């Protein structure tokens, strides 16, 4: 029983990291219906920026976190400006291919020797390891930091979306671009802002990922990003609570499979569950099944 609770705690740690990344996917999908393949690579940039911040610049880690968020936001916005905006009203698949190109660009560019380099980087998080044992369950300070940081930023995001002018602009644009424009919403600016917020969240995910799993490389974003994306789909893509729910489920599934079935099968089981959920609820757990209009 104790070991089961321990696995739940470990799964929660992974799920929370997925959650902040999944939010970026779901926000972008909600607003321009694009699978932003480069988002996982923005997450990777965030992980490296956090590492450079607290290792080379000797910043306290919360400052390094903010730095990573800013850099990621800039990367995300530039990415949208250069690779997606020219294709906004072209076929969806064209923007998707452009997103794949942007993803390749970030991966290969960051792998160059004068950027992050092609090798694995083992990092030393700036936080001393503290472990508390509560009823036999080991809880580390890193897990607490992840939980608190993610919850705080989720609350801020909720405030931003439902209590600010920009938030209501985002909701309007995700509903209908033309209607939003007629209501006087600057659609381009709103989309840029959405990319900035989503990418900053990926930056948080990156820094926290570095604390929890201190080994980075430039292709880190491929698999982690893909799983976060799958989590967003599981919850119902475009729906913000869905992304968090999907990510938490994804974290549990992965850790439980690794613990009780086989660590090699963790991806396969996660994807099998995804396919089964999609077959039962084709729009994800919290998604609405809309009837197609003729």
């Amino acid at each position, binding site marked *: 029983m104790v070991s089961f609770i321990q696995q739940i705690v470990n799964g929660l740690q992974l799920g929370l990291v997925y959650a902040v990344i999944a939010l970026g996917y779901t926000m972008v999908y909600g607003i321009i219906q694009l699978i932003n393949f480069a988002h996982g690579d923005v997450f990777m940039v965030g992980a490296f920026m956090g590492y450079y911040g607290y290792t080379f610049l000797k910043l306290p880690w919360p400052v390094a976190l903010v730095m990573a968020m800013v850099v990621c936001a800039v990367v995300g916005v530039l990415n949208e400006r250069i*690779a997606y905006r020219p*294709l906004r009203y072209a076929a969806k698949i*064209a923007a998707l291919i*452009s997103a794949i*190109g942007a993803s390749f660009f970030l991966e290969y*560019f960051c792998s*160059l020797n004068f950027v992050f380099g092609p090798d694995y980087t083992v990092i030393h998080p700036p936080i001393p390891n503290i472990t508390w044992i509560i009823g036999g369950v080991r809880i580390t300070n890193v897990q607490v930091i992840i939980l608190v940081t993610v919850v705080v930023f989720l609350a801020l995001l909720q405030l931003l979306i439902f209590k600010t002018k920009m938030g209501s602009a985002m909701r309007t644009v995700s509903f209908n671009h033309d209607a939003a424009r007629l209501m006087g919403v600057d659609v381009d600016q709103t989309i840029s802002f959405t990319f900035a917020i989503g990418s900053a969240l990926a930056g948080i995910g990156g820094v926290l990922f570095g604390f929890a799993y201190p080994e980075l490389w430039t292709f880190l974003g491929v698999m982690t990003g893909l799983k976060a994306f799958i989590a967003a*789909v599981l919850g119902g893509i475009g729906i913000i609570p869905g992304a968090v729910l999907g990510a938490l489920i994804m974290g549990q599934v992965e850790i439980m499979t690794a613990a009780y079935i086989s660590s090699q*099968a963790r991806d396969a089981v996660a994807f099998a569950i995804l396919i089964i959920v999609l077959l039962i609820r*084709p729009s994800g757990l919290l998604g609405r099944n809309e009837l197609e209009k003729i």
Partner: protein
Amino acid sequence: MDKNKQIILALVSVLVLYAVLEALMMIGILGPYWQEIMRYAMVVAIGALGLSIIYGFTGQFSLGHAAFVGIGAYAAGLFNLTFRHYGIPAFLGSLVVGAVVAGLVGYLIGVPILRLKSDYLGIATLGFGFIVTNGLQNADKLIPALGGARGMTGIPQVQSFGWYYALVLIVVILVRNFVFSTHGRACTAIRENETAANVVGVSPARTKIMAFTMGCALAGLGGALYAHNIPFLHPDSFNFLESINYLIVVVLGGLGSLTGTVITAVGWAFIMEVLRMVLGPLYDFRGVIYAIILVVVIIVRPQGVFGGIEASFLVPQIKRRKAHAAAGD
């Protein structure tokens, strides 16, 4: 007849191209290394034509195409290793086995998941792709010959370019005949508007499953050829990134253009090597430049390089006489 002239001209140019390539190989301008890439280009072309049926003509988004290439490759390899015949009949037999096994798996997975639409279908196929690579990595626990994560070796190699070239031609003709048949037009109707197609009597479920099965069988055929071109099969050669590559080829080629798919497949297979030659000491930058080319090309031509363009000998001639007769009545 004008049409016959076109077809004869096309046949002659195809033969001349083959003769030129063979001559270049004989002289040694195209060494063994380039020959391997040429054969690989043919493999990509066949696999991409499969995805072209699924996505280009029927509009069913698949992000797991490489998994079916992998299934074909492993099935063909296992067939050859089990029966230990290394001649041309065994080679051709293994091609059939690869295509049939991949087509069968495509059918079985297609029946449930083709109910999903657009991005959700893409994600389900992506998930299936991961399950296949994961399964292949652990396949040695069931069948040791598959090699699991260590990879599969010992498959007899067939290195004469002629087979690969001929198979691409056969597949192009087959796909072209399919696309312009009743069934092919049903596929296009589904792509354009599923509801409207259904109303005029095209069964969406049956048409999608048929297209998906055919596309997967072609992927399997490509995979079987792959197994004879590269003496080492590894699950990672058929992973998610490889599926993305097939998607890139089909979209950049222009959805619904067979000419574009084949030309882009060959171009794609060569681009990395060409970049490496051109860049020389700046070789490290080839990935970055490839990414930039990708983004620029798709922004300049969102419909694909050959979008809406088809070599005229591939397009059937409209039967003018009948049309006139109908108009006269």
